[in-house]
C-alpha cells in the first residue's frame, strides 16, 4: 500500500481505468497537458495521448452534451466540471438528457458509460462560487447515481466503480480534502459498491449520518461527545442516489437517535430526505426528534465562512440536544 492524498487516489483510479479499457477518456477544462487546476489528471495525456485526455473549450453545457453523445456511442467518458459551482450551465444536459437517456428511449440507447467528476464543498475560502454543495438538486433526478467519497481510499474504489457502472454517475469530490486527506491506498484496482453505506464507527447511543468531507467533521464532533461518555455510530452514505436507507434505519432502530450533518444549506438539503425516510420507517424507535446540522440558508459567504459552516461544534451541540431532549 502507498500513502496517497485524495487527488493522487483519483489520479490513480483514472490511470487504472484508462489502462484497463481504451474506451475510457478524460476531458474538461484544463485537464489536458496541464493536468487540471487541481492536478487530478496529471500525466494522463502524456501516458494515453491527446485523444483520450484532452482540453475542451470553456463550456460546461457543451462538455456534458459532448459526454452524453460520446457515452451513447458506447464509450466510457469521464467528464470533469472544474467546480461544482459551475455545473449549472450543464444542468439541462444532466437532468433532461443524461438522466433520462435510457428511460425515454425504452433502452434503445443509454449513457451508462458516463461519469461526471466535479469538486464540491467549502472550507477553502472560496466564497459563493467555489464552495457550494449542490448534490440535492441532482438527488431529485431519477436516473442519476450520485457518489461522494470521504477519503483517498474511498475515492479510488468508488471512482473505479463509478466509471465502470452501467449507469451515469455524478462523482462529487470534497475539494477541501484533496490534499488534506492522506491515507493508505492500494496501488492496484479495487471496487467499492455503489449505493451501499459504510458504518465508519459502531456505537449504541446515537447515529450520525453524513457524506463526503462532512464525515471528518462528524468524527471530530464524536470525539468530543465520546469524552462525555456518549457512544456514537457514524454512517457514511457514500452514495446519496440511490441511498442506503436500510443501513440508516437499522442503525436508528438500534440507537434511537439520529443527527444528520451536511455542508449544504438547510432547506431542501439531502438530509431532509434521510430524516423523512427514517421517521416513516422507524418512528416508534425514535427517542428524540431527528436533528439536522447544515449550512445556513444563505449564499455561501466568504468572511463568515467559519460561522456559516456546519462544523464539529455545531454537530456536537446537536448530539447533546438529541440526547438531552
Amino acid at each position, binding site marked *: 500500500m502507498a500513502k496517497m492524498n485524495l487527488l493522487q487516489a483519483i489520479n490513480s483510479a483514472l490511470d487504472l481505468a484508462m489502462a484497463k479499457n481504451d474506451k475510457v477518456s478524460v476531458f474538461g477544462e484544463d485537464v489536458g497537458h496541464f493536468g487540471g487546476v487541481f492536478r487530478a489528471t496529471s500525466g494522463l495525456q502524456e501516458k494515453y495521448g491527446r485523444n483520450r485526455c484532452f482540453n475542451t*473549450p470553456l463550456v460546461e453545457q457543451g462538455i456534458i452534451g459532448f459526454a452524453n453523445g460520446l457515452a*451513447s456511442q458506447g464509450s466510457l467518458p469521464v467528464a470533469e466540471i472544474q467546480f461544482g459551482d459551475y455545473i449549472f450551465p450543464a444542468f439541462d444536459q444532466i437532468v*433532461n438528457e443524461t438522466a433520462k437517456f435510457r428511460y*425515454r428511449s425504452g433502452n434503445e440507447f443509454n449513457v451508462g458509460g458516463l461519469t461526471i467528476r466535479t469538486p464540491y464543498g467549502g472550507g477553502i475560502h472560496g466564497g459563493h462560487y467555489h464552495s457550494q454543495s449542490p448534490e440535492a438538486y441532482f438527488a431529485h433526478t431519477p436516473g442519476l447515481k450520485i457518489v461522494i467519497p470521504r477519503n483517498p481510499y474511498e475515492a479510488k474504489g468508488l471512482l473505479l466503480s463509478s466509471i465502470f457502472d452501467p449507469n451515469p454517475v455524478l462523482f462529487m469530490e470534497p475539494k477541501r480534502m484533496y490534499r488534506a486527506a492522506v491515507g493508505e491506498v492500494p496501488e492496484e484496482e479495487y471496487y467499492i459498491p455503489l449505493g451501499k453505506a459504510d458504518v465508519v464507527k459502531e456505537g449504541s447511543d446515537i447515529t450520525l449520518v453524513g457524506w463526503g468531507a462532512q464525515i471528518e467533521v462528524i468524527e471530530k464532533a464524536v470525539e468530543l461527545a465520546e469524552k462525555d461518555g456518549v457512544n456514537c455510530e457514524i454512517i457514511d452514505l457514500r452514495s446519496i442516489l440511490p441511498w442506503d436507507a436500510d443501513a440508516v434505519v437499522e442503525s436508528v432502530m438500534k440507537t434511537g437517535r439520529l443527527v444528520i450533518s451536511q455542508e449544504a444549506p438547510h432547506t431542501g438539503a439531502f438530509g431532509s430526505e434521510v430524516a423523512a425516510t427514517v421517521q416513516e420507517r422507524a418512528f416508534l424507535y425514535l427517542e428524540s426528534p431527528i436533528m439536522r446540522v447544515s449550512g445556513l440558508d444563505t449564499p455561501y459567504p466568504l468572511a463568515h465562512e467559519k460561522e456559516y459552516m456546519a462544523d464539529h461544534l455545531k454537530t456536537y451541540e446537536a448530539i447533546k440536544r438529541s440526547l438531552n431532549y
Partner: protein
Amino acid sequence: MATQTTKQPDVVTSVEVIDGNALRIPMFQLLDKDGTPHKDVKLPEIDKELALKMFSTMQFIRVLDERMIAAQRQGRISFYLSSLGEEAASIGSAAALKFEDMIMGQYREQGSLAFRGFTVEQFMNQLFSNAKDLGKGRQMPVHYGCADLNFMTISSPLGTQIPQATGYAFGQKQAGEGHCTLVYFGEGAASEGDFHAGMNMAAVLKVPAIFFCRNNGYAISTPISEQLAGDGIAPRGVGYGMKTIRVDGNDILAVYAATQEARRLAVEENEPVLIEAMSYRMAGHSTSDDPTGYRTREEENAWRDKCPLKRFRNFLLAKGWINEEDADAQQQEVKEAVLAELKKAEQVPVPHIDEIINDVYDTPTQQLKEQLEALKAHVRQYPDAYPKTSEGVK
C-alpha cells in the same frame, strides 16, 4: 504541448468596422421551382432505384403527416408534428448518408427515419404509445428512436442533441470505421446555448459531424426576423471556423449533393460541416398551433409554389422514371397502409405497469421496486380508476 495557433491579425491604422451582414452566403440550387435543372449544372449521380426510394418516402411522409393530423383532430392521438413542406431537407440529407452513420433528429425529421426503414407499424406504435412502441410508451408522439436504424431517440428540449452529436462523432472518429453523425435542428434551436457549445467543440476537436439546420422560417410563431439579425445561420459556421454550405432545402437533389459533399469532408478530412437548408414550415408548429394568427395566406402561397414534392415529381416525370398514374397509385396504396396500421395500433394496449420502473437504471433499485409494489397494490384497490393497467395487476 499545444501552442497558441490562432493567426495574428494584420494591422490597420484606422478604425475598421465590419458590417454584421458582410458575409452574404449564396444558396446552392440545382432544380428550379418547377423541377427543371438549371443550365449546365452537374446533377448528383443518383440511380433510378434510389431516386424512386426518395420519391416514395416523400409521398409516404406527406400521407402520414396528413393522416396523423386528422387522427389528432379526431382525438385518437394526443399530439402531432407535421413536416409538410420540409420533406426534401430531411429525406435528401438522409439519402446521402451511409446506413451506419448516426442520425440525431430534432422532431420534424420523420422523412429521414422512414428513409432508413422505419415501418408504418413502428410509426403507429410510437404515435399511440402502445406496448409495441420501441420507446415503451414513455414519450409524446413523434419522439421516435431506433438503435437498429442508427436513429437516436428524440427528446423535447431544443438543441440538446447538437453537442451530443459532437460527442457521438468524436467516438466514431476514435473507432476509425469511417462513420459520421448528422444532427438536425431548426433555426430557432440555433439560438440555444447548446448550438454554440456543440458547434464550437466540433470545430475545435475536428469531429466527423454534419450540423444540418432546417431553416423553416418559424419557431412556433416567432418569425426569423425576431429570432436573429444577420444573414441566417450559415455565417455562424464560418465564425466557428467550420466549413459551411447553404442549400435550397426544397430542392432534394441539391440537398443530396450538399450532404454528400459534407459527408466526404466529415469522414475523409475530419472536418465538421454546417449545412443551412432554406425552407418553410408549411404546417403549424404542432397540432397545438394555429399559424393563421401570425402569418398571411399570401406568404404561405408563395412557398406552396416552391413545393419540394411537386418539384421532384416533375423532375422524375421529365426523366421518365415515373408516370402520373403510378405515382398517384402509390400514394393511394400508402394511404390505405397507414389507415390499416393506425387501426391496428390503436387496439394495442399500453405497456404493462411493470415497465414504469424499468430503464431508469440498468436494473431497478430497491426503492423503485418498493414503489412499484405499493403502486400495484393501490391499482388493485381502485381498478376502475386505472383502467389501462388494472387488468395486468390482477
